């Protein structure tokens, strides 16, 4: 089977040498050290592994790296620009939209994908888009609030 020899992550083309069937998650975490992207289930059910592939929300755990070798991949590490957090990252802090934080990277990446295609999502649209991302600590209402803060729909901060 053909090997993949490079991958574009967060704007940088990085050398790698892996079987094309290897999951994008494994390549990111174990070969390229982008550990902000998490493993949670391995079957695209929990969303902890969410990254952007050419701007599209993608579950990296079930995505063979061979399919994305020529595309632009963005991970949680790639959101911060010149020391400035992405507005949604700031909104997560503002809304206290996490407890253990293990789902947070995936939540933010899914939220960023949503805001890219729909900058002013309704609450129902947020819930529908985010429904395949899981938070076992139960911070869903705060995550919705964070997305609303980032979209400008809400100024109010949850207690």
């Amino acid at each position, binding site marked *: 089977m053909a090997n993949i020899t490079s991958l574009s992550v967060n704007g940088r083309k990085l050398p790698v040498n892996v079987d094309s069937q290897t999951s994008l998650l494994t390549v990111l975490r174990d070969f390229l050290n982008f550990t902000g992207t998490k493993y*949670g289930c391995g079957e695209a059910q929990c969303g902890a592994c969410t990254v952007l592939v050419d701007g599209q929300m993608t579950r990296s755990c079930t995505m063979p790296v061979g399919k994305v070798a020529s595309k632009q991949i963005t991970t949680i590490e790639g959101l911060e620009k010149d020391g400035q957090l992405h507005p949604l990252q700031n909104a997560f*802090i503002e809304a206290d939209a996490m407890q253990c934080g293990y789902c947070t990277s995936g939540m933010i990446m899914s939220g960023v994908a949503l805001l890219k295609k729909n900058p002013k999502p309704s609450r129902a649209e947020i819930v529908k888009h985010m429904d395949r991302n899981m938070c076992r600590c*139960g911070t869903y209402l705060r995550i919705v609030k964070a997305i609303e803060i980032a979209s400008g729909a809400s100024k109010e901060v949850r207690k």
Partner: protein
Amino acid sequence: MKEELELGSEFDLELERYELFADPIYNFTFNRRQFLRAFSGGIALLVPMSNLVTTSGQQEQGESGRGRMDQRVPNEIGAWIHIDEAGTVSVFTGKVELGQNIRTSLAQAVAEELHVMIESIRMVMADTDLAPFDMGTFGSRSIPFMAPQLRKAAAAARESLVALAAEQMKVAPAEVRIVNARFVNHDASKSLSFADVANGQKLVKTIPADVAITAVKDWTIVGKSVPKVGARDFVTGKHEYTSDLKRPGMLFGRIVRPATLNSSLVSADTKAAEAIRGVTVVRDGDFIGLAATDPQTLTRAERAIAVHWKAPGQPAAAQLFEQLKRESSPSRGGARPAGSITDGMAAADKKLSQTYTVAFIAHAPLEPRAAVAEWNDNKLTVWTGTQRPFGVRSELAEALHIPETSVRVIVPDTGSGYGGKHTGECAVEAARLARATGKPVKLVWTREEEFTWAYFRPAGVIEVSSGVKNDGTVTAWEFHNYNSGASAIQSKYAFPNQNIQFHSSKSPLRQGSYRGLAATANHFAREVHMDELAQLVGIDPVQFRIKNIQDERLKAVLEAAAKSFGWGAKKEAGRGAGIACGFEKGSYIATAAEVSVDPKTKKVKLERVVASFECGAIVNPRHLHNQVEGAVVQAIGGALFEGIDFQNGQIMNSKFSRYRVPRFSDTPPIEIVLLDRKDLPSAGAGETPIVGLAPAVSSAIFEATGQRLRSLPLVPNLS
């Protein structure tokens, strides 16, 4: 271990049997000798272990307290605060951060008393070589027990520093204040930094008996919504969980497991795997583990192994409740009979006997068990996500036949636990692989492994028989819990005649602690039964409860929830409301829920929830709100749809695609009403808010449909 001796006491210190798998090991190895070896200079304030394990952690004075300049070091240290010669404030505690934000709350307590910014506090947590022994992070104990002791230590540290600063500035101690992390005299003409004061000191004190801590009315940091410590690292992906760690030369590990629980190894052919470059196969009894240089090689090795296991026949979920009853013991603690059931039944106008059940459920923390193990000479270091770092250290020492002093366990802030990470299976496995390979090994359990080889919340059967007068007075209460546990088996209702018992049983699956323990099951049975009694005598469920409550705090949360919910308001057709209340581990909860049930599809939708919670003086309103809300959301799963299905040694739903947990679309609007009792000591809040939802939802479904559901999860039982 001592069991259920103090059940129902105000501070329920006794550990639920499922909280631990073995007797607590009081191996307080962080002793005087070690401390003095570790302490190089500056100022240290020690919390004696005895202060943390007594029943009234709030105000208990350590036996070592002897005035302001006591130099004695207690034999067993429970926590300590160190201001080093550079002026850095470090807090050493064995507590673990799992998302409950205890790192923040404890730092608040110390910052308050030291009069410094929270950012200047360095929390050194859950490292068995640096932090003193701690039994574990469970049972809502960190806030009522650890926080007050650290406050006192910080207050004593401040007193010592102020005295030293006064001496250096040649002013009276009463003149010295701390402003912006500097000691200043009355007109700020003189000032010293923490480093100036601590430099050249070598002062060790045990917290004195008479140390004064800041009164609640004067709190400026505690009681405030301080943001989560380290939040930025979580939103940028920088925080390293155990599963993110890398060590030089590290290998990736995997365990070869049978398809069936309780299997034993018949034969294994590992030759082909061993022949792969970069692969080590470790066999030790029934243990077969693999280590490889990268995950791809690991997968190839795993596929190259042929294993034959054998397993005994094992029971299925369908026989579970019958089995738990059949295998149960006559009685196991919890029994505190009062009055006479016979008399109580004779005095009743109506009687009711019902059986309630709860299923096994999984914690499913989003970060599965993970460990990185590394040997240096004969010393083992293991990074792992556990709620009991010192317990896991013992497990490692025992499994690997090495002294505990040769083991160091470090717990990075962890991807949650909910009571599910008390054990060290993964740590032991990683350490075994690391020893065999001579290299650091990382092992991360798969989701299927986490669902299958961890442990579950105990399933249970609860039988309730009661008698009630037409005026709503409950006259008799007989309550038998089989297997699920004794937590909150006693209630705050004033039942004059009661017989309450817990019966242990033989569980077909490995079971253990779960957030709130059996308080969820016992509240479910009790509160649904109360609702049934209210209906039997035709009294409103809120009024019916109030009639039987003497505890003012319980009444207060119930009334607060009813008021915010708009209890008694008219509802649309197909909708119903339910309410429940309870007490556990020093805190009070009342939960009201409204559901709609589609008459055709029978789809149950949780429309809204109001939860009213009181845990004494609030330490951090924002994080408390988050914690209560999270508990309500987690409770939705156990109430409506979570349940482990098993058959003949196999977990049939060991994946998220088969095991449904609450999601965004399951989460209704939730209103949290926090009652701040500044006059009462702060209790923990991580567990109790979970107990009220299931009974409230069951009663709401009853109002909507007329069907009384007495088994958790509820949805599959709706016909």
